């Protein structure tokens, strides 16, 4: 049935929220990125000078590189772990309600508390994980002084925190794979590995792609974990793009530079989502009339 004015009225509260608090401010950031400004001063048009400044700033490139590397590690580590746990669960689950609650538990925890947990478990010399690693003869993480260790800890806690999301999408998809497909593969003499590769994996591929896309887009926003753990230190070596943006705006009051960073983040997020958005668009408009 076709929409009448009353129906547009009913969607307007939801649409207004999006337009007023997210869409218009984001466009405004695009405008701001072409200006030189600080909080409380008049904006002055400078063309693409902010982007040139960004491109010339080694700290920006460091933050960009950190973001690209840790986002990829986080997303694929989560995918492998999530797939492993989902396969384990789909193969028969003892105490299903309890086990699901256990796996989903990290989803309930605030980033601030996640940082507290991992920070104290990896407290130099005295943290329980440091002692455990020491007992195994592995040197502990010096995350406060070694940037690589700092980023490793950020990856570890991000994976812990978001695994439930990836797991849940893949597990739901696995439960949706028809049993007959597996039996057919078995009748054809396929081993477990071949059945997985040729039957299971193709059936859950759409879910894998959706999980990957959403985790890319969300991991790319990563702010609280690095901010609360290292504040980008030592010497701005563990900054990610969101931390760089925050510091540019609220510490150095270079709004134009922060806006250019923000607009770069926005465009990169949209670029990552293009295949998904196109698929959604095709499906929606095929159903539009």
């Amino acid at each position, binding site marked *: *049935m076709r*929409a009448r004015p*009353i*129906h*547009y009225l*009913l*969607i307007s*509260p*939801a*649409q207004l*929220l*999006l337009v007023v608090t*997210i869409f218009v*401010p*984001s466009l*405004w950031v695009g405008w701001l990125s072409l200006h030189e400004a600080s*909080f409380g001063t008049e904006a002055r048009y400078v063309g693409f000078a902010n982007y040139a400044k960004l491109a010339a700033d080694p700290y920006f490139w460091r933050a960009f590189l950190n973001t690209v590397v840790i986002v990829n590690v986080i997303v694929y580590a989560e995918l492998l772990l999530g797939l492993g746990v989902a396969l*384990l669960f789909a193969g*028969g689950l003892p105490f299903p309600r309890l*086990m*699901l*609650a*256990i*796996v*989903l*538990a990290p989803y*309930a*925890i605030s980033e*601030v*508390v996640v940082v*507290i*947990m991992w920070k*104290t478990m990896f*407290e130099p*010399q*005295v*943290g*329980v994980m440091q002692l455990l690693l020491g007992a195994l003869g592995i040197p502990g993480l010096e995350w406060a002084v070694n940037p690589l260790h700092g980023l490793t800890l950020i990856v570890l806690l991000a994976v*812990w925190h978001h695994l439930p*999301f990836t797991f*849940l*999408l893949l597990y739901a998809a696995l439960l949706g794979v028809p049993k007959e497909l597996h039996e057919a593969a078995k009748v054809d003499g396929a081993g477990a590995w071949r059945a997985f590769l040729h039957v299971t994996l193709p059936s859950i591929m759409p879910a894998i792609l*959706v999980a990957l896309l*959403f985790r890319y887009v969300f991991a790319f*926003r990563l*702010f*609280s974990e690095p901010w609360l753990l290292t504040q980008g230190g030592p010497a701005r070596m563990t900054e990610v793009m*969101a931390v760089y*943006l925050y510091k540019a*705006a609220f510490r150095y009051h270079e709004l134009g530079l922060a806006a250019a960073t*923000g607009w770069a983040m*926005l465009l990169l*997020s949209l670029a*990552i989502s293009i295949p998904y*958005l196109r698929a*959604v668009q095709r499906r*929606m408009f095929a*159903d*539009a*009339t």
Partner: protein
Amino acid sequence: MRPRRWRPLVRRTLRGLAFVAVAVWSLFPILFVIHASFRPPATIFAVPPQYLVPPTTQNYVELAKLWPEFFGSLANSLVITLGATALTVVTSALAGWVYARRRGRLLTSSAFFMVLVRMFPPIVITLPLFPAVNAAGLSDTHLVLVLLYAAFFVSLGTWIMKAFVDQVPREFEEAAEVDGASLWQMLRHVIVPLVIPGMIAAAVFIFIFAWNEFLFAFVFTTTRARTAPLVISEMLGSVTGVDWGPVFAAATIQLVPVLLFVVLLQRHLVAGLTAGGVKG
């Protein structure tokens, strides 16, 4: 014995170990924090570790003494979370019903717009909103956080609601129309009772998000509207050295309610994510 007989046993043992490993990975950090909150502060970082010490509530007493504002921030968190949840569920339910039932190019474009906006990174909007919120006199108010949290979840909420309304047969609505019910009466008495599970699913997501959110609380609140995660982060930033006992106590108080929430409502969490939640 032939090796073949052993295989099921080995398989079962390995699977059992894998389940234990998954449980330890998920629960250990959480239990570590809760347990630490009941240990005497001096033993928390003792080497070698001391786990079997008699429990104490000393850390909670210290928390109340040193950080009384933490309890006010819990109240702020609750008000903001309930406000954002109510706003998201109502706006999503209205929009979700329209998208499930009506068609049209303009309507479809607006639906696509909702998906598109989900991809925008939240930190970007702090730049223009920070001065705008100050100028409007809304800085450090509950309202700002309610609006921002709702805005970032109304899209997921609408998709969940659309998926649930899709399950309700149209005939129910037509029957109500024949009986002379107005649009409002039909929504209120026919649709709402049937999509309550969807409303709970949408509520679970926004509730967890709003209760735990850090970035917007950090940028937009300073004293009056500070949320619990923000006060906990301030406890971590103390210049005189972090007082870990009260930090663990505060973290425990902050995480236990929402953990119970997830355990009790896990069915709705699963339904929300799978019922078209992220599929668009």
